[in-house]
């Protein structure tokens, strides 16, 4: 069942268009993650769903009802802010109870809701403390508790973990995953910069870029079948290598030659790749393997070697005008800086994009 839908939603501040024609259907029980570079409009979109920003164009529906003009409190949403946004003068209990008190719910109902949220989030020992007497992780749990108490149809999280330190971030991320599991019916929308959060939490990821949706899909789908070079380079770390190439032989098994003399055969779903047209060949650093043969994909001078034990990361001297290339080899290798090495990859791991950056898989 569709829990939330955005139809041609746009946002502009005066002449500045921040979001353009966003279309998205979210099913009940999904955990959708918005990712994208800073300033791409993730928070703005979330705040429009929450009702904290007006919607300039298009329709927002929650549970089948148009919500564009409905005040925030009646949209059936709850939001967790990056800075927690706890009321500093109220105890944990009162923080969680505030919304229900405003709605004049009976005291027994309020108490039950708080007891339930406190049990789920293990906040019982802290109920009578003020927020300033809590650690960052505990504060974030209270903020989450405050949203659970509201019993919303849709939970909204705006970078909830980015104010926590690394260890706590992992722990709280796992807690959020467990929370989602304990409430399978609830829909969640989660904004983050962090790829690991996106990949581990999401049922589907929405990649935003400059006010447009670039691709929507399950985490591994985005990793394995990126729709364009932006998604290809945004998902995965280090980013995917892109090589300028020329089509030698089109067809389902397209044969390409890279500008630096490499050679590869890429299986693609469509027939469109014309002979002689220039394309971009993508290969992930972790998919590259060393080779001795003449059928190599890439031959380059090693500039920096980072030996991490489990992996060895090689940075190659960029050819003029091209982005630096990276390879990530498993295990320990005794490769010296300055040597020239050859690398290749299995055809199934290669990605082919038009010179405009659109994947041939989706054409």
């Amino acid at each position: 069942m569709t829990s939330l839908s955005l139809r041609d939603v746009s946002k502009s501040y005066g002449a500045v268009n921040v979001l353009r024609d966003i279309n998205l259907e979210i099913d009940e029980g999904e955990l959708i993650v918005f990712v994208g570079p800073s300033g791409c409009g993730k928070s703005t979109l979330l705040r429009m769903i929450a009702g904290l920003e007006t919607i300039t164009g298009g329709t927002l529906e929650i549970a089948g009802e148009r919500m564009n003009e409905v005040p925030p409190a009646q949209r059936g949403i709850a939001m967790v802010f990056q800075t927690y946004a706890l009321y500093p003068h109220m105890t944990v209990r009162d923080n969680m109870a505030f919304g229900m008190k405003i709605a004049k719910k009976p005291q027994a109902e309020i108490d039950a809701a708080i007891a339930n949220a406190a049990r789920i989030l293990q906040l019982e020992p802290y109920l009578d403390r003020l927020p300033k007497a809590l650690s960052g992780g505990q504060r974030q749990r209270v903020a989450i508790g405050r949203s659970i108490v509201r019993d919303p149809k849709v939970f909204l999280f705006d970078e909830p973990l980015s104010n926590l330190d690394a260890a706590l971030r992992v722990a709280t991320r796992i807690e959020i995953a467990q929370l989602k599991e304990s409430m399978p019916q609830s829909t969640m929308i989660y904004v983050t910069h962090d790829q690991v959060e996106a990949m581990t939490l999401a049922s589907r990821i929405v990649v935003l870029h400059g006010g447009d949706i670039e691709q929507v899909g399950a985490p591994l789908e985005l990793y394995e079948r990126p729709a364009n070079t932006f998604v290809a380079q945004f998902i995965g770390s280090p980013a995917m290598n892109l090589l300028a190439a020329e089509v030698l032989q089109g067809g389902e098994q397209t044969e390409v030659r890279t500008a630096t003399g490499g050679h590869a055969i890429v299986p693609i779903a469509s027939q469109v790749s014309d002979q002689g047209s220039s394309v971009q060949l993508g290969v992930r650093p972790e998919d590259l393997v060393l080779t001795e043969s003449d059928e190599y994909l890439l031959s380059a001078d090693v500039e920096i070697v980072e030996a991490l034990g489990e992996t060895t990361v090689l940075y190659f001297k960029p050819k003029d005008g091209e982005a630096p290339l990276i390879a990530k080899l498993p295990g320990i290798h005794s490769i010296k800086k300055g040597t020239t090495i050859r690398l290749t990859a299995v055809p199934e791991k290669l990605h082919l994009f038009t010179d405009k950056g659109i994947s041939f898989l989706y054409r």
Partner: protein
Amino acid sequence: MNPALQGLITIILGVGGCIGYFYLSNQFLDKVLFPARGKDAGRNINRANMIRPWLFLFPAVFALGLYLGYPVIETLRLSLTDRSADGAFVGLANYSQMASEPKFWEAMRNNMLWLIVVPAVSTAFGLLTAQLTDRIAWGNVAKSFIFMPMAISFVGASVIFKLIYDTRAADLEQIGVLNAVWLSFDGGLGSFLFLRLTPALILLAFAGFMVYGIYISVKPYIWSGNERRGDAWWTFPLRAVVALGSAWLLWLSVWSIVSVMTGTLPYGEPQTWLTVPFWNNFFLMAVLIWIQTGFAMVILSAALRGIPEETIEAAILDGANAFQIFFKIKVPQIMGTIVVVWTTITLVVLKVFDIVFAMTNGQWETQVLANYMYDKLFRANDWGVGSASAIVIMLLVMPILVWNVYNARKEMR
């Protein structure tokens, strides 16, 4: 010599003297007293650093001692002596004489009225204007106008308000705004609405507020639930004082409602506002409120801006309306600042002198303590009673001062 030149020379001498003092005294400490060389160099540096703060503190401590500490002690001594008996020690005779004077108690009562009304009204107006001017385009212009009275001296403001309260004979044109407005009332419906109903309703709201205050302060002792656990020893006296104070104000406001509704109003006759007993106090207070509202507004609007925007957005999501956001989210978060503003204005009020001196000089039952002291010291030349009243003012100011400093420090942390 030209006074401007004199001023310039004073400034140069003063600043130069300060710099010279700090420079030379530090030189003396480092080069002569504990020189940082020889076999004791390390120990000498430590010693010099222990003494250095005192070098810097000395001028301030000396000046404060001379101009603040000494006068307090001298005033205390004078308050225990009698001038007519050549300065003989008379114990507390001055105090008991003062306590037997009705004018002193009138001053005490008026000071208490000022103490309650002026800080409360100034802070409330300041908060209101700070909130209202926060988000509008011309808010800063409005703020500048409201702040402007802060730049006017109390005496200047008194002169302005004397013009507002000015009275002319009935057949002349009134130049006082208040009388001009007053004469436009004729006892009809408009007069009833504005002069009886509106003030009565305001007083009724105030009375209701006082009832609430009493209720809040006695609640835990009537329904002794578990709320009282962990109370500090001073909660009972504090609650008792608040309850009694509220009860007194409740009685005053109920009495005022009755008099406002039933009293006969002299329509058509110009009033000499400053001679109307009891109410003239409020006409004087208006001057100080006019001045202090700007101060309260500036501090409170800075505090309002300091409230994290997310807490307000969270409250919007929680369904709070504008009033609930203001009273339940914003005001509690700036409570510390409100208290500091309140107590700061209270300190100004306790020392109020210029306004009363310039407008009524304490006649028609408007006496206040500071003016009473001035009367005794410089008009009656009775230094004993004058000093005694000065000591009373100091004792009243002291606890509020301590509290103010305590709160201001807490705010800074």
